[in-house]
């Protein structure tokens, strides 16, 4: 069924177009679009425009990712900072980031920096929110375990807080990437003279519809390989953190009552509850 329906739709489109049930000017048959797509990719210009869009995406993401994660983490651990910054985040988040474009165009002039920065802001807010969420919704027992085993300050941060927030951070990065792409393509459509978004616009104005659909299709297929790439590259260097997270989780098993063990622990003069089973 997953294959059947889309293929059926395409075939239907093909037939309607060829037999002029729908005006072929506006709805060229998929085969023509496919042909043009291949032709243009081979000729290189579709590829070049794709690269332009991707380059912008890369820059936007690079600008947004690190500051976004950092801010999110800092806001998560430092309450005053969170109180101070949260109103801005809450205020800007529902605003269409495309509205920032005219301002950036004035301040930075019409050009790459304005485009990239618009995309970057789209990603930035999502990343901050997801990261903050990751820190805030982590299992509080993990913090208890950390403190109980002597982790303080920086060590608590690196060994416990960061790994626990990592899944949300990656979700945020993935979502941010998607949002940046959407914003960038929209920006290209509106204001740029290059890139896939612009291509769609140009061909629309010229009514060269097969080229337009080809560019359109390329935009649609950009995202999935990208996010898959991000996920796989991310897992490799960070498995070490994931493993340390698993160690902490393992430490949360109910302690066996061996009086000697608790006597040995230097901080057990405090009656600190270990991982209690229920959390009420």
């Amino acid at each position, binding site marked *: *069924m*997953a*294959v*059947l*329906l*889309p293929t059926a*739709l395409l075939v239907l489109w093909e037939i309607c177009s060829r037999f002029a049930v729908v*005006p072929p000017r*506006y*709805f060229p048959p998929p085969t023509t679009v496919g042909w043009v797509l291949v032709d243009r990719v081979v000729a290189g210009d579709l590829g070049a425009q794709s690269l332009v869009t991707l380059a912008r995406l890369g820059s936007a993401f690079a600008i947004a990712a690190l500051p976004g994660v950092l801010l999110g983490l800092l806001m998560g651990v430092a309450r*005053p900072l969170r*109180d*101070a*910054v*949260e*109103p*801005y985040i*809450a*205020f*800007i*988040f*529902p*605003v*269409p*980031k*495309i*509205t920032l474009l*005219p*301002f950036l*165009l*004035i*301040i930075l002039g019409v050009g790459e920096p304005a485009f990239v920065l618009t995309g970057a802001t789209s990603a930035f807010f999502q990343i901050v929110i997801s990261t903050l*969420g990751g820190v805030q*919704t982590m299992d509080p027992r993990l913090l208890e375990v950390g403190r109980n085993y002597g982790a303080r300050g920086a060590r608590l941060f690196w060994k416990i807080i960061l790994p626990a927030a990592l899944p949300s951070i990656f979700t945020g990065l993935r979502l941010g990437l*998607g949002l940046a*792409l*959407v*914003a960038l*393509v*929209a920006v290209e*459509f*509106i204001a740029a003279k290059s890139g896939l*978004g612009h291509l*769609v*616009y140009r061909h*629309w104005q010229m009514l060269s519809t097969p080229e*337009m659909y080809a560019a*359109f299709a390329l*935009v*649609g*297929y950009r*995202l*999935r390989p990208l996010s898959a790439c991000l996920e796989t590259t991310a897992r490799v260097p960070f498995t070490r953190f994931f493993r340390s997270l698993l160690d902490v989780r393992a430490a949360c098993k109910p302690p066996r009552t061996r009086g000697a063990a608790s006597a040995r622990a230097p901080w057990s003069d405090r009656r600190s509850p270990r991982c209690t089973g229920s959390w009420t």
Partner: protein
Amino acid sequence: MRALGRWLTEHWIAVGSPLLLLVAWEWASATGLLREAFFPRPSTIAAHLRQLAADGTLWGHTAMTLIRIGWAFALAAVLGVSVGLAMGLWRRLRDGLDPVFAVIYPIPSVLFLPFVSFLVPPGEIALVVTTAVTSFFLIAFTTTQGVRQIDRLVVEAAVHYGARGWRLFATVLLPGALPLIFTGLRLGLGFALIVVVAVEIVAASRGLGALLWLSWQILKIEDMYATFFVIAFLGALLSYGLAAFRARLLPWVQDVAEP
């Protein structure tokens, strides 16, 4: 009154921080630290905003945008919930439509404008339909999720106690999916605003997006800022406003985290 006082003392940083920023901005702009051509003083912006409101332009454009959002959202909501429910209930439909939706959904709505303008008469209808597109997919997707995440045991119990066919749908499946449907509607509304502004920038002469772009083209930067704040206010209203209703409409839902 005392409750307000208490809230203020608790949230003084959150309230104070933007206030401080505004004051700093005003000062920096007045003294030339920030280029006034790029960052006009908040007081000037406020004055322009008042002017725009007074001579009616603001209301005209805002009304236009709101009407478009209204229609687009209605369209997206009705279609989205129906399709979402259908996809949630019938597996084969879901299997068939999923790949189609997965391809179309990530494309920025604005790009659909050419396509839509081929399908429907150009002008208002094209703008409204384009605005509805991404919202539709969002709402359909969350609705489907809403149906699928209903606890199977609850459904089994309901069937055991005699709920079949239409009754099962009305008393179990629909209420069970409601929390997620509501979330989808909320997100869809927010998205509608985002898209309508972009679409207005490209292809409209009236509406907040059009006003923003127009102000840019004639370099009236104070008007740009004023419009921006109106859009931001609208965005906050639409995104957070519905959330307030949630408690009233869905009394049985305990919140975990909000998207």
